[in-house]
């Protein structure tokens, strides 16, 4: 099916309905494989010991927290520039997922930080900028709830999303621009990953599994939002008599 056809909500519902069962199976298999590698194959780290197990969930959540916002930024352009009918549906559906992944990145990072750094929290640039990302997600969710008309809410949320996108490079490069307790990038580097392959592979499989979970939940949430707008349209018809 050409991608342009998916702009039609009815076609999107039919296509995503066929895709979702398969996506759930693939997600479960990849996440199961990733958890097996994380707990039964990956060795303890030579410095932090078993605490490295938290990395297998913390890092994918941190990546997805940013990736979700990047997807929303593209969707915001889709709303304001191309007026794609599903763009603001995607924006609204992705925000709670992004908030959940950012919350999990913060909590798992905090639980990793206490035994390795000696503190649950420090106001360094990386942690603070990720907390700001979480607050932006909450702000977007509140904005969607505050404006009743989905079209007006979509345009307002799109503008706020684009403004908030400035935070993404700040998060990414905060560990390079400022002196932070958080370590610098150790996977996506110009000179290659600094993590041993025995730990890198479980991490990448878990990241793939979590990304598939995000895609699955996003499709489900988008279907719900399309149905919610149909309910609204039908209620308006009913009220008009």
């Amino acid at each position, binding site marked *: 099916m050409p991608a342009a056809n998916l702009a039609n909500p009815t076609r999107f519902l039919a296509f995503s309905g066929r895709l979702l069962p398969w996506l759930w199976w693939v997600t479960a298999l990849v996440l199961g494989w990733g958890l097996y590698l994380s*707990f*039964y194959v990956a060795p*303890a780290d030579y410095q932090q*010991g*078993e*605490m490295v*197990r*938290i990395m297998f*969930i*913390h890092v994918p*959540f941190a990546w997805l927290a940013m990736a979700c916002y990047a997807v929303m930024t593209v969707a915001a352009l889709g709303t304001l520039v191309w007026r794609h009918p599903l763009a603001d549906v995607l924006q609204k559906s992705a925000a*709670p*997922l992004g908030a*959940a992944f950012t*919350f*999990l990145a913060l*909590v*798992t990072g905090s*639980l*990793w930080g*206490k*035994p390795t750094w000696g503190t649950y929290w420090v106001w360094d640039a990386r942690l603070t900028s990720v907390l700001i990302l979480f607050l932006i997600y909450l702000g977007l969710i509140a904005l969607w709830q505050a404006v009743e008309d989905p079209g007006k809410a979509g345009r307002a949320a799109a503008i706020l999303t684009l403004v908030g996108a400035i935070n993404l490079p700040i998060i990414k490069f905060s560990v390079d621009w400022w002196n932070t307790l958080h370590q610098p990038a150790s996977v996506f580097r110009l000179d290659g990953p600094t993590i041993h392959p025995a730990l890198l592979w479980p991490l990448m499989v878990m990241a793939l599994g979590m990304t598939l*979970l995000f895609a699955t*939940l996003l499709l*489900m*949430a988008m*279907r*719900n939002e399309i*149905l*919610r707008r*149909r*309910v609204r*349209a*039908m*209620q308006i*018809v*009913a009220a008009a008599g």
Partner: protein
Amino acid sequence: MIEGGTHLGFIVAAYAVTVAVLVGVVGWIVLDGRSQRRRIADLEARGVRRRSSRNVPS
């Protein structure tokens, strides 16, 4: 295989929070979907149709 140790509680807590939040998100999305489909079925049972579906030949 993971070994027990003094920091095992932090690992268990991290995975427990993860499972709780993800199960909550999945549950919320599934229940929201059911709720929307039920509302559409109720409106259709009352004879309400969307304007766009009125133009679709049966």
